[in-house]
């Protein structure tokens, strides 16, 4: 019986269900697998789930790399409802995780609460995209999203032929404002260089998942004269990219290089490599190399976490080289992309646009 099951399992793994089967092996503890005995790290997704084409998926990629390259024992729990967050973190602790990542700002309260009520357990917590709110065993990982947004805004400003670009946000929040104002500042910076005005049309979908809504917003923007639209809206952006492809315009992706969604229509992407961050930070946090209870804020200057993809077949090479120069300027703090409305108006004043 047991033998038959194993044969079938290996057969299936060979048949291309590799991913699933590997998880299966990860589950069968103590079965002499290389990863067993490795450090246990778990992540709890937000309601987007493990296959969200973005944030959670990337995070899981990071943990999978930890498993494959360092022999960690990793697992994930998907949350179906907002009310599941705390119980799921708790479950991860029950199954012996030494480090539990919570993915997304929606989980901030739950992660802080769990950190507070589990002082006696040998476990540390991390949360991506949110502050620590003071618990000693909790570390927040935040990204300066305004920086890559500024860069893609700059590329958009240099590339637009109609002097009109768009921005589609998910649910209005400080996180997304960073994308929005960074992007606008980048557009303005390019416009200043070119000595013209470029309009930025902005709209929030009030959702991170409503594809159709993203599509209809983008369609409106394109038919209103915009030729490039940047989105920071999770799966809503899939609709934005669809609209770009159908109307023959460009979209700018987010989080990961989204050109695989539409090679012809994705101009570039504001990359935010959660996977890389989790891969690099988890061991350090586990070993106390980085103390808990702090926020780690990652910018362009801090490593390979933010940026734009190297391939740039739709971008004029000159523009691309200039964009790389802008990145260097940001790293050198010569340009400080704004993350809030106030910072943005200060920025426009500083470069002489009113």
């Amino acid at each position, binding site marked *: 019986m047991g033998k038959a099951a194993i044969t079938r399992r290996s057969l299936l793994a060979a048949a291309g269900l590799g991913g*699933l089967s590997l998880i299966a092996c990860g589950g069968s503890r103590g079965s002499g697998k290389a990863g067993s005995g490795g450090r246990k790290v778990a992540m709890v997704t937000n309601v987007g789930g493990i296959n969200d084409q973005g944030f959670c998926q990337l995070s899981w990629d990071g943990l999978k790399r930890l498993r494959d390259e360092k022999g960690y024992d990793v697992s994930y729990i998907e949350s179906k409802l907002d009310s599941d967050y705390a119980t799921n973190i708790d479950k991860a602790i029950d199954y012996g995780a030494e480090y539990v990542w919570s993915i997304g700002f929606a989980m901030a309260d739950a992660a802080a609460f769990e950190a507070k*009520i589990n002082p006696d357990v040998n476990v540390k917590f991390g949360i991506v995209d949110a502050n620590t709110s003071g618990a000693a065993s909790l570390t927040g990982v935040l990204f300066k999203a305004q920086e890559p947004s500024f860069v893609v805004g700059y590329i958009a400003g240099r590339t637009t032929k109609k002097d009109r670009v768009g921005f589609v946000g998910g649910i209005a929040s400080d996180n997304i404002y960073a994308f929005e104002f960074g992007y606008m500042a980048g557009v303005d910076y390019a416009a200043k260089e070119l000595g013209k005005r470029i309009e930025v049309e902005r709209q929030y979908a009030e*959702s991170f998942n409503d594809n159709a809504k993203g599509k209809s917003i983008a369609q409106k923007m394109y038919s209103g004269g915009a030729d490039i639209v940047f989105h920071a809206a999770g799966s809503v952006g899939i609709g934005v990219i669809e609209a770009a492809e159908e109307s023959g315009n460009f979209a700018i992706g987010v989080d990961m290089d989204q050109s695989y969604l539409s090679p012809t229509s994705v101009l570039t992407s504001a990359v935010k490599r959660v996977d890389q961050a989790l891969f690099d930070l988890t061991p350090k946090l586990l070993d106390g190399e980085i103390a808990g209870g702090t926020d780690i804020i990652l910018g362009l200057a801090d490593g390979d976490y933010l940026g734009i993809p190297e391939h740039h077949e739709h971008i004029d090479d000159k523009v691309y080289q200039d964009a790389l120069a802008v990145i260097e300027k940001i790293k050198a703090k010569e340009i400080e992309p704004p993350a809030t409305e106030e910072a943005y108006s200060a920025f426009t004043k500083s470069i002489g646009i009113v």
Partner: protein
Amino acid sequence: MSGLVKFLRRPIASTLVAVLVGLLIAILLVLVTGYDPLQTVATLVHGVFGSPKYITNVIIKATPILLTGVAVSFAFRTGLFNIGAEGQYILGTIVATIVGVSVNLPAVLQIPLVVLSGALGGALLGALIGFLKARLGIHEVITSIMTNWIMLYLCNFVVSSEAFHNPNSNTAYPINPSGYTMILPQWKVSDEGIEYLLQHPWLRDVLLKTDLNVGFLVAVFVAIVVGILLKRTKLGYQLRAVGLNKDAARFSGIAVERSVVLCMLISGGICGLAGALNITGINPHTLSTLVAQEGYGFNGLSVAFIAGCSTVGCIPSSLFFSALMYGGMTVQQVVGVPSEIINIMIGIIVFFTAIPSMAPWIADAIERRRSRENKNLAQETKGEEA
């Protein structure tokens, strides 16, 4: 007739057979997809019974689907298919949140106010569906499905509205804490509460690590009361008569239209109550942006059908359903079996409970085989005699 055959002819046998078949097929699926079925089952059991807090969580998660299950059963027993339980549930959460955020009274007043207003919201929506059916003849399934979506978007509208949106989140403001229905809601999260509970691990598990609340008791009470209502009251008698034979009920002077509206009002009210109790009883005590239906109403349908539409039967059925869902998450984390397999298993069980004649059919098959064997035996003996 043997004991087995006799047992198979009882209504509960069909349910148990369906559950068994569902579990078997799920185990087969687990096997085929390459996981260890024994470990899966063991993990499932551990994920449900492994700790007091797991059991508590199963009970907490059973609460809303017990209520929606009772609502669906009740409507079904009176001839209506309330597929709108989902929408009524959502409206219950919406109204409870709005009231719970806007009003701040002492707990003794706040809790009943928030809970009842949520129930009232669901009731009115149910009554509207009933009214459309009774007066205009629009089938309740159609209006229900449409109201489900209207409620989903109403919820998202409220979440993103100026007055209720909680900044930097995808949720509305949580209700005022005086409306919380957990056990010792304020004390347990206060510093001295946590301090005390940290010294008492068992209590910490149950109180601090779960949102243990009074909802399940309310739900059980409702299940029993609705059972009595259906079986022992004049109103229940009328509703059942209308449900089982509308024409005869009308012919004998029962007001069928009123009965339809009333039935949907009650059913919707129970769904609204489920929504309100979820708002008052569990974190984050507020609405969040809905992408798809959360499934409390639809799971209620499953609970009801597994229970054979007995309102009291919904109590074990909702616990069973909740255990599968909750334990299924552990299976996914520990064994790696995708949660879809658990969902498929539930689907199969519901599918088979929808075939009520299955167990009697098995009983028939057994009997037929026996009688054939007896016959053969008789013939053989005859042959030998000859």
